[in-house]
C-alpha cells in the first residue's frame, strides 16, 4: 500500500437531505428481511460510473433534492454528476458552472456544491477513483433502516471525511448527451389481488390522477387520490414484495414499494410498475401528479428490451 493513500479526501461541509453511498444493491437476502437497496435510478447510476471509466458496480454518492457541499483536498481528480442536477464548483472564491454527464476536474481546495435536483429527486456523484467505503453482504449500499452498508449504515453527516482511493489520471471528457425526460403515465402490470377491488375502484385507479405526497423516500412513494375501495379484504396474509409493487392500504391509498422497501407486506397488491419505468418513477418529486396505465407482460418485456438498447446506445455514444 502506498503511504499517501489517504491524502485525497472530501470534507462534508453540508450533508444534504439524504446523501448515501450506493452501488448495484444486495441480492439474495430478502428471505432474511434485507431489501435490495442500491442506486434508485439505475440508468443514471450506470452512466455515472461509465463516464468515470469505472467498473459498473463502483460506489457512487447518491443525493436527493438538496445534495451535499464537499470540500476537496488532494491531487487533481475527474468527477461527474448525473441526473437533472444544478451544481457549481467554488474555486478561489469564484463560482464555476458545469454540466452534468461529463468529466470535470476538481482541484485541491475546490468546493463542490450540489445545490439541487431540478423537478426530480435523485442525482449521482461519481469520481475517477473509488470512495473508500465499508461493504456488507457483498454491497456497499447504505440501508439506514437496517443500519448496514457504507458509512455504518447512515446518511452523510456534517463534518465527516470521505477518503478516496485508486485515483485515476485525469480522464477524457466522456460526455454523454442525455435528457432526463419526465413522465406522468406509469405503466403497470395487474397484481395478484386485482380482483380485491370493485370495478369502479379499478376504473378510477387506471384513469384518475394521483398526487405524490411528501411521505415518499427510498422505501416507497405514498399517493393520494380517489380512495380505492376494497370489496374482499383490506389485509392479506403477509407475503413477499418486490420493487415497484403497488399496495393499497386499509385507507384505500396506493403505496409504491421502492428499493429499500420492507421485504414482506400484508396489503393487497393491485399492480406492479414495469421495470423499464422504474428509473423515471423514482424521479417523480412530491407534489407531482401521476397516472397509471395497464399493459400486459409481453409488452412490458418488449419495452424493457428497448430501455436496455437505449441505455447501451447512450453508452456507445460517449464523446
Amino acid at each position, binding site marked *: 500500500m502506498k503511504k499517501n493513500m489517504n491524502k485525497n479526501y472530501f470534507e462534508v461541509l453540508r450533508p444534504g437531505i439524504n446523501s448515501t453511498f450506493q452501488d448495484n444493491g444486495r441480492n439474495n437476502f430478502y428471505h432474511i428481511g434485507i431489501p*435490495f437497496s442500491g442506486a434508485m435510478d439505475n440508468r443514471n447510476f450506470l452512466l455515472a460510473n461509465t463516464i468515470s471509466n469505472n467498473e459498473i458496480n463502483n460506489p457512487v454518492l447518491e443525493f436527493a433534492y438538496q445534495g451535499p457541499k464537499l470540500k476537496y483536498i488532494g491531487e487533481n481528480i475527474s468527477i461527474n454528476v448525473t441526473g437533472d442536477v444544478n451544481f457549481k464548483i467554488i474555486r478561489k472564491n469564484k463560482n464555476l458552472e458545469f454540466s452534468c454527464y461529463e468529466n470535470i476536474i476538481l482541484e485541491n481546495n475546490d468546493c463542490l456544491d450540489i445545490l439541487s435536483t431540478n423537478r426530480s429527486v435523485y442525482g449521482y456523484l461519481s469520481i475517477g477513483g473509488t470512495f473508500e467505503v465499508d461493504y456488507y453482504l457483498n454491497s456497499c449500499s447504505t440501508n439506514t433502516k437496517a443500519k448496514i452498508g457504507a458509512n455504518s449504515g447512515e446518511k452523510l453527516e456534517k463534518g465527516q471525511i470521505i477518503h478516496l482511493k485508486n485515483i485515476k489520471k485525469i480522464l477524457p471528457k466522456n460526455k454523454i448527451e442525455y435528457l432526463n425526460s419526465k413522465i406522468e403515465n406509469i405503466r403497470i402490470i395487474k397484481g395478484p389481488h386485482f380482483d380485491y377491488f370493485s370495478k369502479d375502484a379499478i376504473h378510477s385507479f387506471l384513469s384518475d390522477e394521483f398526487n405524490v405526497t411528501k411521505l415518499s423516500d427510498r422505501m416507497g412513494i405514498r399517493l393520494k387520490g380517489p380512495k380505492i375501495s376494497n370489496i374482499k379484504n383490506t389485509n392479506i396474509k403477509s407475503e*413477499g414484495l*418486490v420493487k415497484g*409493487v403497488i399496495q393499497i392500504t386499509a385507507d384505500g391509498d396506493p403505496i409504491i414499494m421502492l428499493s429499500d422497501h*420492507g421485504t414482506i407486506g400484508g396489503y393487497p397488491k393491485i399492480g406492479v410498475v414495469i421495470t423499464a419505468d422504474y428509473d423515471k418513477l423514482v424521479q417523480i418529486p412530491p407534489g407531482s401528479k401521476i397516472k397509471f396505465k395497464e399493459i400486459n407482460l409481453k409488452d412490458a418485456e418488449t419495452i424493457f428490451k428497448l430501455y436496455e438498447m437505449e441505455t447501451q446506445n447512450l453508452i456507445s455514444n460517449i464523446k
Partner: protein
Amino acid sequence: MIKNISNLGDAALYCDFGTEVNKEINRNVINYFNNLRDSNFLGITNITPSYNKLVISFDLKLTSFAKLKKQVENLELKKNNNSKNNLIKIPVCCAEEFALDIKRLQKLLKINEAKIYETFFSKNYYCYMTGFIAGMPFLGDMDKSLFAKRLETPRVKVPKNSIGITEQFCNIYTFESPGGWNIIGKTPVDIFDNKKNTEPNLINPGDTISFYPISKLEYEKKYE
C-alpha cells in the same frame, strides 16, 4: 405443491401454495425455497418465502418469466431438504420493565401472569418466515388460550429484542421499530447482528425455536 405460478410484474414469479396458514403448507414453501437456493437458475435475484407464497424475483436482463417458470415447474425436489434448519434456544427475561403488555394480556385473556408464561414457554415455535425488518422472525403457533389482538394504537417505538405476540404468532423485534404486538419480554441475544458479514440472522425460515425464561440478573450478565 405449487398450486399456481403467476407473474408479479415483469421481473418476479408469484408461487401460490394455498390460502391457509399452517405448517404443512409452509414446509412445502420452505422446501421449494431451500431447493431453489441450491438450483443456481440463471438470473434469480431474491427468493422470499412467506406463510403460503413464494416470490422469486429475477434480473430481466438475464432471464424471463416464461423461462424461469418452466425451470421452477420442472425443478426436481430433494424431499424434505431441511438440513439447513435448526432448533434454536432463545432466553427471555420477563421482568416488569420488559413485559410491557403483560397486564393488558391478563385482562384480555383472563389468565394470570404465571399461567401465561407457563403456557408460552411450554411450546416450541416454528419459523414461518423472516422479514419485514431485517431478521424479524414470524413464529407460530401460539397456544389458543394466548390468542390476543394487536394493540389498538401501535407503539411508536418497540424496544429492540422485545418478544411480541398476536393471534397465533409471536415475533422478535430485531430493531427498535414501530409495532402493535403485545410485548411479553426481552431477549439479551441479538437475533440480527448487523456487524456480522455472514449469516447475520440467527433464525431462518423453517427453524424451530424454544424460548426459556431467565432472571434479570442472568439477562444483565448475558448483555455484558
